[in-house]
């Protein structure tokens, strides 16, 4: 549907800018790699046989990436809301790479492509557990993707966040870490002082 027919208003069942952008970059990278590998002759041969456009990996996608969940949102809650668009085939909670605790995203797999599209249209951008959730069409779950890719094990977005988000572990983890450092330094200082004070008392 992309490209050809165009509705009079935007459709909500399209892959997000995030997805397209990532993919464009990936494709561009691939193109460049391909170009590098080819030398003149093969390029000639290739030009005679134009490559077929690669099949859209989302054409029959039944999986959704769901983001901005609270760390405390349970599978049962996800089931309850997402079942409103059709029976759920599989639900994979996103986990912290180190603690194996929920880290605020999940993959919902339906039995049909239509259910997934309907979910984008009707559930994406509404609230679950009192947070506006984000849904994005996904080419499908692969082992390993259930883990956060951030440095400290959670999602990248939770590393450097400088707003306090109670549902997602407060401040960004990187910030928390520097604060912890500063805090412990302060403690050490005061301990030092206190020890000195004790010394004086003695």
């Amino acid at each position: 549907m992309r490209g050809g027919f165009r509705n009079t208003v935007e459709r909500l069942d399209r892959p997000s800018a995030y997805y397209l952008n990532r993919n464009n970059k990936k494709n561009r990278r691939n193109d460049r790699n391909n170009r590098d590998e080819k030398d003149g002759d093969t390029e000639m041969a290739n030009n005679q046989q134009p490559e077929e456009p690669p099949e859209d990996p989302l054409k029959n996608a039944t999986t959704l990436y769901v983001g901005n969940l609270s760390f405390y949102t349970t599978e049962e809650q996800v089931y309850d809301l997402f079942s409103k668009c059709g029976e759920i085939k599989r639900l994979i909670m996103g986990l912290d790479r180190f603690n194996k605790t929920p880290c605020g995203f999940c993959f919902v797999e339906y039995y049909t492509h239509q259910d997934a599209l309907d979910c984008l249209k009707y559930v994406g951008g509404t609230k679950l557990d009192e947070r506006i959730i984000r849904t994005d069409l996904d080419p499908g779950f692969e082992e390993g993707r259930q883990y956060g890719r951030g440095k400290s094990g959670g999602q990248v977005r939770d590393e450097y966040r400088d707003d306090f988000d109670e549902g997602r572990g407060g401040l960004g983890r990187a910030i928390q870490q520097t604060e912890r450092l500063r805090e412990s330094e302060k403690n050490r200082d005061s301990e030092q002082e206190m020890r000195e004070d004790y010394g004086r008392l003695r």
Partner: protein
Amino acid sequence: MADYDRRQGGRGGGGYNRKRRYRDDDESDHRPQRRRYNEPPLHVRIRKQLLTLAESPLRRWHEEIQTTAHMVADNYDKEEVRTNFLELVPQIVVEQPLKTPFVAAVVLVANSLKPEVTTDVLARIAPLAEEKIKLGEWRDVKLYLKLLACLQSCLEGDGLFPVLEELFNRAVELQTSNSDDTIGTELVKIILLTIPYVMAAGSSQAQQKAADLMDKTDVIASEPHALQVLIDPHHAEKGEDSPTANSSLIGLLQKQLQNEAVNGWELKCLPRPWQMPLEEIELQEKMENAQKHPLPAIAIPETVVTGPRPLFPEIYMSVYANQEVESVPPVTNVAASLIRDGLLDTINIMDFNRNVTARYLIDVDCYFADGTFVKRATPFDRLRDIDGGRSTWKPEDVAVDAVFSQLFQLPSPEHKLVYYHSVLTEACKLAPAAIAPSLGRAIRYAYHNIHQLDLELGYRFLDWFTHHLSNFGFMWKWTEWADDVELPDIHPCKAFIIGALDKEIRLSFAQRIKGTLPPPYQVLIGPEKEQDTPDFKYNNEHTPFSAEGKELAQLLKRKATDEEIQPVIARIHAAALEQSIDPLVSSTDVFMTAICWVGSKSLSHVLACIERTKDRLLDVGAASEAARLQIITSVISYWSAQPGVAIVIIEKLLNYSIITPGAVIDWALVSGKAGPGGEALSKSWVFELVLNTVVKVTGRVRQVLTSGVADGASDTEVSAMRELFKSMDDALVSWAEGTKDQMMDPAEPMDGLGGKRVELVQRWGERWLRVFRRRSAIEEAHMLATKQ
């Protein structure tokens, strides 16, 4: 994103930073800011203008229409302008139908400037209408005809009437050959909904034609359709009439139009953007004297088809009926049908962007004549103060009413119910002060009529209500129903409250919901609901088979093999035989409860555990009816405080064919395990469990039938489905008629409620029966249709 791309792309040449261009330039640069903006090409501007027609609440219809018409007519020789215009007009008409009269007005003004525009538009629309008639896509047919109707004044001769007459001829043929026919009904609906636009656009000569046509439609429109009782949203109690008994959509339309005919087709609510204000009298004359065009032929095939969506007669329903002041058009006024029709088309077409749909709902007053509605967000209490003669219709009420008519549409609306939920959510986000009070009154209507709402609709209302609240901090004025907490659980209002709280908890958690409730409700959320994982009954030494239960749980936890599990099961069997109780039932309770407990951490855990033990469970399920029932009983009693979890587990057990749909029905409706003495029927989660199961079965049958393999497989599926409906019917009839054993059983507590308990249970039985008889009838009709 565009910005992002540009920065990343680096195509500006060697890291050249566009953004800093102007800041870096020295003062000698005097280029005016404006030059940086390139006006988009003409056809793009025309597109934008056409798409935003009438959207502004400033209501500058005539200016917008004239500018657009001029831009089109003056540049019509440009290929881009022409093709884009001719593609866009038919598309707006079927995607944003509330704008059709305004698009028509652009064409009419353009006609006075360049008649060729109209010729081309007609040549474009007629074949499209013809094509849609052939395919049976009746809504699109209606929408193309609506545009043609609005263009009636520039059509030669009788304009659109011959097409409407031809459609009517098909309707008559269909209706005389089959009284159950629904295509004829649909055709009459289209005719009746098109006539007002012809009359609003055309001259007074049309009156006779309209009168003749309506004389003919009267026979079909005034006769109640055979299927009407099946799809009435209300299910009146014995000896009472349904509030919507006489509300067939086409029946009402016929009467409304007859009223209009008597009053000279005033059609007060319809916009007439083709009528120019007095200062534009010259243009008006020019338009009247502009060239008339023949309507290109629209062939209607001898046999017309149902099309992709099954057709049903429609009933007009309003959640604002019988208020002391009219906040929506009364059913006697054609405005009720016309505004509803425009809104419903918009809602159902625009499912791909609920934000736009919600915008349309909020802006509904923009698309109808001045004075049709009161000012937006006028409080209901103020309607009383409005002087006689002026409209008291609240645009918010009219909009909300339209969405509710879809939530309450039987057998089912066009889209998934959650779409209509999302539309109301967005509308509420856009204009909370205006929409929320209207929703409040709609909720009160449904709540106070819950006893006579069709049971399936009662469940839909519950599902919407709780989902809606979950988007708005679970805030509701519970205090106004506080007295009902005292009612017995089996009372429809109390049953609603219990069901609603359970559903709220499912979307959130018990403590949170408890915090939103006033004191009288606190008792409804017991400590067992706040517990994350229910207790394992075998941890209690006094539970029979306590040791075996704990042992099995340990084995399951460490993913032991079936060989290790078997000896424990054998021990239970031996002990049970000694006590002369069913061995398999005993061991199944221990085993299944242990699975639930071991998997209680999350659904993934329990599903993984079921996956590991499915061979044993399959054997158990296949062994006996009693064992199948026990599997269900164990799951549901373990999760009794959180039935939502149990329902998901049961669904998965059905998928594995460990249990059968028949067992679920039996468990819920016959066994008495879901609640004593018919109490099960009042529990919304029991209804949900049964409905889900039936939907699974009927969905499977439909899938097999459409896959088109005419082998034995489909026959077995079909007969299994019929058997299921039959057994439900048997069980429910005995509840409805009060002949159920458990009702007779003196051991069951049948007292209380001032002796009304039996009546209440019977009433629940009737309501259940109606839902599943309808579902059965619809599946039979569907099978018949696919065979043809």
